[in-house]
């Protein structure tokens, strides 16, 4: 019922004939609860533009978690005004309230002032009627009979009395639980539904099976056809099997670049579907595209192969699907003199050319550096002889020291400096060793020696 009808005298709960007698221009529509609920669910996903998390609330509300997002819209008041304007443009009247708890927001949106913003629940709730506590009709009636009209009245009653009276009541019937939830004393966890996948293909099987691989090529073809029709590509695929014992198992594969190439996607499931636990079998397989991105059709090369930029993305996909996304990396140079920080693992598709090789850096780095036992050391020089894993190595030639100081902005205080030496033993092993610290540098005892790298 809109505001015009209300002003003309129509009331909720009155008979349609009576209302039409009062207001002849009244337009009456059949109630369609299922369609309303579906529209509300869609509206809830649309409302995620203001927060990362939203869910329909009852049959006439939407909850949005706006924690940390208000500043993007110019503050809380501006955000509420903007939300209302957006709903108005869609032809909907929205009553809004912003509060720290779900219960308070619910009450303020329905019984509070226009676009209420509340930081402290209790003073904001106190003047509101008890109906604002999301209670069942029986409990509301009971509270009215007890003379408790506002939430403030209810909050003033000792907890013990309320507890005694409503000990066995559920959340719907207990003013105490509802009050605690509204004031943030009791947690009220909620689940935000995921939007249904836009692109999905399903196979319903007549009999339960235990291996989905026979159905995969056809499902992928169908899914990729859907994606191609919409000029989209996906970066994640979720294969779900619905087991006959009421469980669901998922396999997800990710792609480095959006794609809709069925043959490539099929290879990503190689060896993955065997690890799926089929239980007693499953009778529904669903393949859904997630992380859908726009992807225009690409011109294949003259030899019919995919463009070469894609070849690397395809390889990375296959390796990541097989060995996990953490195994694969592209070392990138990093501005640091500390050797272990001079390269960082970058994303596999990063295209930063490597700097030219430095002759004073080894081609291999041991991680962590291995401690060596020095037998005999030239002062301010490298050891003449040292023991690495019970092998004695005699230093024939050396270069250095190259002093690398700790990075005070990153290292803990007390980190010792390192003096690096390039050494070669008498049989031709070329190694990179360092002395950690100096004698009498006040940062620990005698300096220790480490083997850190291997030269070619």
């Amino acid at each position, binding site marked *: 019922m809109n505001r015009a009808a209300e002003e003309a005298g129509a009331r909720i709960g009155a008979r349609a004939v009576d209302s039409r007698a009062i207001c002849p221009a009244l337009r009456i529509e059949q109630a369609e609860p299922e369609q309303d609920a579906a529209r509300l669910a869609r509206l809830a996903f649309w409302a995620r533009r203001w927060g990362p998390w939203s869910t329909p609330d009852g049959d006439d509300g939407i909850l949005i978690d706006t924690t940390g997002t208000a500043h993007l819209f110019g503050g809380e008041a501006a955000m509420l005004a903007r939300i209302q304007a957006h709903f108005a443009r869609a032809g909907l009247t929205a009553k809004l309230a912003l509060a720290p708890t779900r219960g308070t927001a619910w009450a303020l949106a329905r019984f509070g002032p226009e676009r209420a913003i509340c930081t402290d629940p209790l003073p904001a709730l106190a003047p509101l009627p008890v109906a604002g506590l999301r209670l069942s009709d029986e409990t509301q009636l009971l509270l009215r009979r007890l003379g408790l009209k506002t939430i403030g009245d209810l909050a003033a009653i000792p907890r013990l009395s309320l507890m005694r009276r409503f000990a066995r009541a559920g959340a719907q019937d207990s003013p105490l639980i509802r009050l605690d939830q509204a004031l943030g004393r009791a947690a009220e966890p909620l689940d935000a539904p995921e939007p249904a996948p836009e692109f999905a293909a399903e196979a319903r099987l007549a009999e339960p099976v235990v291996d989905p691989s026979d159905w995969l090529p056809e499902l992928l073809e169908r899914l990729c056809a859907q994606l191609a029709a919409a000029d989209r590509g996906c970066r994640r695929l979720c294969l779900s099997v619905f087991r006959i014992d009421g469980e669901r198992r998922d396999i997800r594969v990710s792609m480095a670049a959006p794609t809709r190439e069925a043959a490539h996607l099929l290879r990503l499931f190689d060896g993955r579907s065997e690890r799926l636990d089929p239980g007693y079998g499953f009778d529904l397989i669903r393949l859904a595209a997630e992380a859908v991105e726009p992807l225009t059709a690409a011109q294949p090369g003259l030899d019919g*192969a995919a463009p*070469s930029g894609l*070849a*690397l993305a*395809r*390889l*990375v996909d*296959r*390796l990541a699907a*097989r*060995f996990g996304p953490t*195994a*694969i*990396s*592209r*070392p*990138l*140079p990093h501005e640091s003199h500390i*050797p272990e920080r*001079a*390269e960082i*693992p970058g994303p*596999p598709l990063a295209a930063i*050319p*490597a*700097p*030219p*090789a*430095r*002759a004073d*850096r*080894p*081609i*291999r*780095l*041991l*991680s962590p550096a291995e401690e060596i036992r020095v037998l005999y050391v030239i002062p301010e020089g490298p050891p003449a002889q040292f023991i*690495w*894993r019970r*092998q004695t190595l005699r230093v*024939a*030639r*050396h*270069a250095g020291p190259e002093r690398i100081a700790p990075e005070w902005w990153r290292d803990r205080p007390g980190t010792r400096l390192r003096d690096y030496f*390039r*050494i*070669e033993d*008498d*049989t*031709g*092993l*070329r*190694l990179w060793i360092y002395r950690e610290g100096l004698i009498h540098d006040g940062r620990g005892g005698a300096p220790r020696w480490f*083997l850190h*790298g*291997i*030269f*070619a």
Partner: protein
Amino acid sequence: MSARPFPIGVAPFGRAPVPVVPSLTAPILSEAFGTRPLTGAAPGFVLAALPPGLVLWVQDRLSRTEFGAPFLPGMGRDLLRLDLTRPADVLAALEDGLQSRALAAVVGEIHGHAPALSFTASRRLALRAEAAGLPCWLIRHAARPEASAARMRWRLAPLPSASDPDDPYAPGDPLWLAELFRARGQPPSTWLVRHDRAADRLDFSAPAGDRKLAEPRRKAG
């Protein structure tokens, strides 16, 4: 030349002719064996032999812990690094890499004698490398040569480095004794290989004739 008797295989007058060096960037499976712990000869040789472009570098866990991980500032190569655990995974990743058109070469490192690296597995890799037209290198740490379908098999031992022009006490350009002990269509040969780091080039020369250079190998072997 000193007055001592000539080593076997060296012509008595002048130096022996340098055996023909096979193409190191041919699209075949090659193996490089390191001779000792802590030597960077095999990775260094492979690194210098790789064609320009993006290289997939796959390591198993033991190679990483015992011989270290590739270090970008020292290598100066654009790598796609894959850190795996089992040798079987390394072989599977190499096969995947050989099917891609984005790479210039693939390199795998396997520590010790892995049952997964059987003759059949090496034959698969060799065929894939030839079909894909990409060089594929296997670096074998702490392993003795066994039956393998690799088209070239190298054994690389470190030698005391060439002298540094700026500092006589510093190690200079790396020198290795490279022994090609099995190759298709080529007799086994041995070279003294110097990696000219300034030009990033491998210089092959006849190995024997210089007692000082040949000595360490006799000691090690």
